[in-house]
């Protein structure tokens, strides 16, 4: 079946380092992807999105890269801060949402 998933369930980084969170998808027809951040006790919050006609999109301290050849998506967080500690999901938006299990990012001081 079709799925959206993440490579790693946990990621621990030092404060100030860059973080990279990965996501694989299997539906080659998907053309729109979203990254969400979910802090403890809260609902997911939109971070950044990307369309399939793009390879890269940048936001404030975040960059999303899309490799359609291998159906891979990544979220890069620059200069990771303690407030970045959360679970991060990629989602495949095909009208309804398909989510991966999430990666928990922990930032060590």
């Amino acid at each position, binding site marked *: 079946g079709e799925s959206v998933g993440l490579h790693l*369930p946990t990621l621990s980084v030092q404060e100030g380092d860059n973080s990279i969170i990965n996501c694989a998808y299997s539906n080659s027809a998907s*053309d*729109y992807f*979203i990254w*969400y951040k979910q802090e403890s*006790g*809260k*609902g*997911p*919050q*939109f971070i950044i999105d990307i369309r399939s006609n793009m390879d890269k999109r940048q936001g404030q301290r975040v960059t999303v890269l899309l490799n359609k050849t291998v159906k891979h998506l990544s979220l890069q967080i620059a200069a990771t801060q303690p407030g970045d500690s959360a679970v991060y*999901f990629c989602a495949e*938006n*095909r*009208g*309804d*949402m398909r*989510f*991966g*299990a*999430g990666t928990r990012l922990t930032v060590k001081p």
Partner: protein
Amino acid sequence: DVKVTQSSRYLVKRTGEKVFLECVQDMDHENMFWYRQDPGLGLRLIYFSYDVKMKEKGDIPEGYSVSREKKERFSLILESASTNQTSMYLCATHFGYSGNRARGYTFGSGTRLTVV
């Protein structure tokens, strides 16, 4: 900004009880969704609704029902709660489609339900 409000942050219910989870949005969105979130499984779609009095089954509707009597309110109902329904429940809404893409997808803060 769209506000999606889930009435309870935490709930503890007994096995066999009928449970109502309420979700209210304040931006006149037509599309509303209920998910459950479990460790290692991510978010799974239970039910969704594209209009008042309209409902569609998602991927895991068994043991649940929904009600959409008013546009702003979408209720998830556990007819007879069981321990395997202990989970985080998330409501979401969006305001329409651009092509086939849902626009303005927004989540509530979630209700953590424990069935004992």
